[in-house]
């Protein structure tokens, strides 16, 4: 079945992963800008990263018939130094008109600090000025509940339409509030943290299939670029029908990402 993995960090993956994903039915991905596992020593490091996201990765993905889109930002782990973060943010407008850039992301909070919040608010403003979609990273583990609420408050206070924001990495203690406040919700399928495929299907059974998607967020850590099709297997194993699988991994991503005016599935282009 054709599917979209709407959050994966292919800069950290091999070309063989593109091949395996294509074989499993992946037709499009979106890649948010993130923490590389180390702090970059200068804004120039981000400049090259943005070039990689807007020029190199689309070509690598195209070799396997996968459409590649991306999101740009400074991630919250490197946002504790506002002066540094602002230097990186100055680079973003130059790239926003590249054809595969969908919006600003993955912005958000990490340790829920004052400086992280200031930079989050400034990046929300950047998205607002350019009328772009927003993809939100929510914090890890014990910091997720508080950080998700702080982020949603910042977005609402800025006057952002929640229907144009995807709040990612939701779990059982955050999903209801995210959906109740009108945002889109993303579930990340990880082996040790966030959601397993089984728990993601539990959440769909409990909270419904509207404004929600699944993603692998495959990166340099413990993660699996094929976790999305594995979650489809989990849905079918329980007796859910193909319509649900398509809703979660094709129709919903298409509905949210289509708001960018740029996202087109390969077979529709």
């Amino acid at each position, binding site marked *: 079945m054709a599917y979209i993995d709407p959050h994966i960090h292919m800069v950290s993956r091999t070309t063989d992963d593109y091949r395996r994903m294509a074989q499993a039915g992946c037709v499009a991905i979106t890649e948010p800008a993130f923490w590389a596992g180390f702090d970059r020593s200068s804004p120039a490091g981000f400049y090259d990263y943005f070039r990689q996201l807007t020029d190199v990765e689309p070509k690598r993905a195209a070799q396997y018939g996968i459409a590649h889109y991306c999101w740009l930002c400074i991630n919250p782990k490197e946002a504790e130094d506002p002066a540094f973060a602002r230097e990186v943010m100055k680079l973003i407008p130059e790239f926003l008109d590249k054809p595969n850039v969908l919006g600003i992301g993955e912005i958000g909070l990490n340790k*829920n600090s004052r400086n*992280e919040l200031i930079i989050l608010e400034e990046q929300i403003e950047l998205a607002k000025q350019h009328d772009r979609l927003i993809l939100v990273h929510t914090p890890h583990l*014990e*910091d997720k509940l508080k950080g998700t609420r702080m982020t949603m408050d910042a977005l609402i206070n800025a006057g952002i339409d929640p229907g144009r924001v995807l709040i990612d990495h939701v*779990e059982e203690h955050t999903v*209801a509030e995210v959906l109740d406040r009108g945002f889109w919700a993303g579930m990340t399928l990880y082996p040790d943290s966030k959601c397993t495929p*089984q*728990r993601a299907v539990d959440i769909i059974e409990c909270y419904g299939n509207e404004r929600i998607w699944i993603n692998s967020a495959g990166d340099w850590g413990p993660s699996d670029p094929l976790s999305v099709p594995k979650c489809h297997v989990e849905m079918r*194993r329980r007796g859910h029908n193909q319509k649900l699988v398509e809703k979660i991994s094709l129709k919903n991503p298409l509905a949210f990402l289509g708001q960018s005016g740029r996202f087109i599935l390969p077979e529709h282009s």
Partner: protein
Amino acid sequence: MPQPSCPLTSQQVVDIYFMEHRAKLLDVAAFLDRLERAEGHEGLQDVRVRALKKAIPLLLDSNCENHANRTQRMLELLSDHTTEPTPAAHTQSALGADPNTQY
């Protein structure tokens, strides 16, 4: 919100998932055994271990019966419930349990 539903019968849930979760439960038991067998006592007082031991009884908490929200309650137990921004981020990583909660 829709009514929570799973297409499987409860017997099918047991038949499909029992072995997987039997193994996971044994892993938790083995982790606690390993911890007590290991040299030194500081690990036994680690906030993560104290939080885990506080979470385990939720599996059998009668308040969870018929509500099926054990996962949500465990995640809430392990979360920071303050509302003000942290003054500064002194680390980039998270522990898995709130270091400022008395578990």
